[in-house]
């Protein structure tokens, strides 16, 4: 063990261990979330949701996962093979990278980077690319339209997302996620930056392609969007990435606006997960309440409302900080 450490360096080992932990967490998180989503949706619709499979249906997501793994690996004819194969794998990279820098607790963080948030933002653009690959590689019109929509949407919403995070970065005076959490010792940033939080949340919902912004996979229009042609395992990867993304945006929101792992009585990680899952719940709640917006309305909302608002917010914050 020590030999390995000496060869590869302490940091590397820590990162690898962290990555394994992250992988386990990702799978676990997705399982929990799919179960919670179905259960919450069920109760919002006054039915039960998964019940017969395991106590309270808790085994349900595991059954789903095993089933998906056991499906025939099917590559449709006429797909662009390399792209089709690569896309579901690639969509996972940003997810894993993001977990590396998220501080779950004061000491529970794979790596605290100087430019932590930049890492997440930089790599999150990769998912767009893999969606494009999936859409193009599937050689299917629904998939392609879904992919194009998804990209336009992601580009449009990445800007307000960034602009909403900037005031917080200015106030905390650091890119490091840990420093940002530490800066909220006394007061959560959501109190002094409610507009930024609002903008961030909307943009985040849009980034994760959830209702009311789920245009790329709009079932009634595009069948299933960019993953129309994917089945079994590969579809499971998309699915996993989607749910992990939901958790990540919530986790970032918690880190930036809701005081991260800080809270009385309970250990930090509990607070962190509690806050994150509350936000996840809100996202699920939104999904089961609202209809979907239209494409041009979606873009208009971003370009005409959120971005100007975010800019103004940024200017005001900058001005106030200077004073």
């Amino acid at each position: 063990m020590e030999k390995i450490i000496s060869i590869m360096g302490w940091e590397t080992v820590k990162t690898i261990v962290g990555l394994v932990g992250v992988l386990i967490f990702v799978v676990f998180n997705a399982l929990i979330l799919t179960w919670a989503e179905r259960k919450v949706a069920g109760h919002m619709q006054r039915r039960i949701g998964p019940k017969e499979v395991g106590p309270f249906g808790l085994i349900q997501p595991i059954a789903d996962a095993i089933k998906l793994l056991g499906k025939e690996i099917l590559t449709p004819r006429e797909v662009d093979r390399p792209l089709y194969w690569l896309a579901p794998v690639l969509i996972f990279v940003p997810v894993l990278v993001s977990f590396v820098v998220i501080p779950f607790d004061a000491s529970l963080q794979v790596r605290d980077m100087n430019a932590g948030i930049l890492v997440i933002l930089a790599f999150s653009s990769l998912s767009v690319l893999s969606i494009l690959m999936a859409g193009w590689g599937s050689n299917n019109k629904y998939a392609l339209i879904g992919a194009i929509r998804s990209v336009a949407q992601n580009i449009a919403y990445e800007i307000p997302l960034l602009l909403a995070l900037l005031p917080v970065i200015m106030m905390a005076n650091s890119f490091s996620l840990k420093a940002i959490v530490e800066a909220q010792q006394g007061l959560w940033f959501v109190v002094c930056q409610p507009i930024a939080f609002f903008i961030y949340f909307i943009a985040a919902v849009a980034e994760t392609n959830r209702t009311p912004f789920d245009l790329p996979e709009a079932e009634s229009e595009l069948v299933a969007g960019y993953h129309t042609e994917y089945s079994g395992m590969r579809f499971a990867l998309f699915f996993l990435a989607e749910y992990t993304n939901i958790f990540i945006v919530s986790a970032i929101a918690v880190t930036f606006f809701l005081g991260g792992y800080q809270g009385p009585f309970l250990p930090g990680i509990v607070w962190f997960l509690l806050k994150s899952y509350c936000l996840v719940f809100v996202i699920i709640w939104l999904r089961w309440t609202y209809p979907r917006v239209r494409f041009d309305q979606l873009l208009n909302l971003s370009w005409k409302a959120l971005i100007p608002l975010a800019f103004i917010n940024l200017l005001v914050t900058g001005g106030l900080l200077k004073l």
Partner: protein
Amino acid sequence: MNFAEIIFLFIIAVTMGGAATAVLAGSVVYAIMGLVVTMFGVAALYVYLNSPFVALMQILIYVGAVTVLIAFAVMLVGPLYRRPKEWTTAGKFGAALGVALVSLLLFVRFVTETFPRAGAPSFEMTTKDIGRLFFDDLVLPFELISLLIVVAILGAIMLALFARGNK
């Protein structure tokens, strides 16, 4: 050879391979994928050059914005774009040969030449330093680039409007 060095060689190979793909690939989509790989490689090289901030910006801007934009444009025109043959086979081989030759020559030239070599990592460049630099010494280029971007955005909007009006 240690671990970091192997990775370094691997990165270089990937970068150059990506660049070659970007130029030689038959389909534009693959060219773009090659470009993405190259950009990631370059970003990794930036990390080796002690500039993680630049590396991140590279990914954010090049991969996140530029390539995505290009790919987006391809897909917009894509459905109609019947994947034309970009290269004739002869042309492909010719180009490959030419690139290989020139690189070989250069490589020989490089090996014989001595360049200054870095000593111990000299200083840790932080975002603060870069920011300060932009607002002190490089304020003019910085302002110019902002102006350029504004003009570019306006230009793109005008183009889009023109395109729509034309229809």
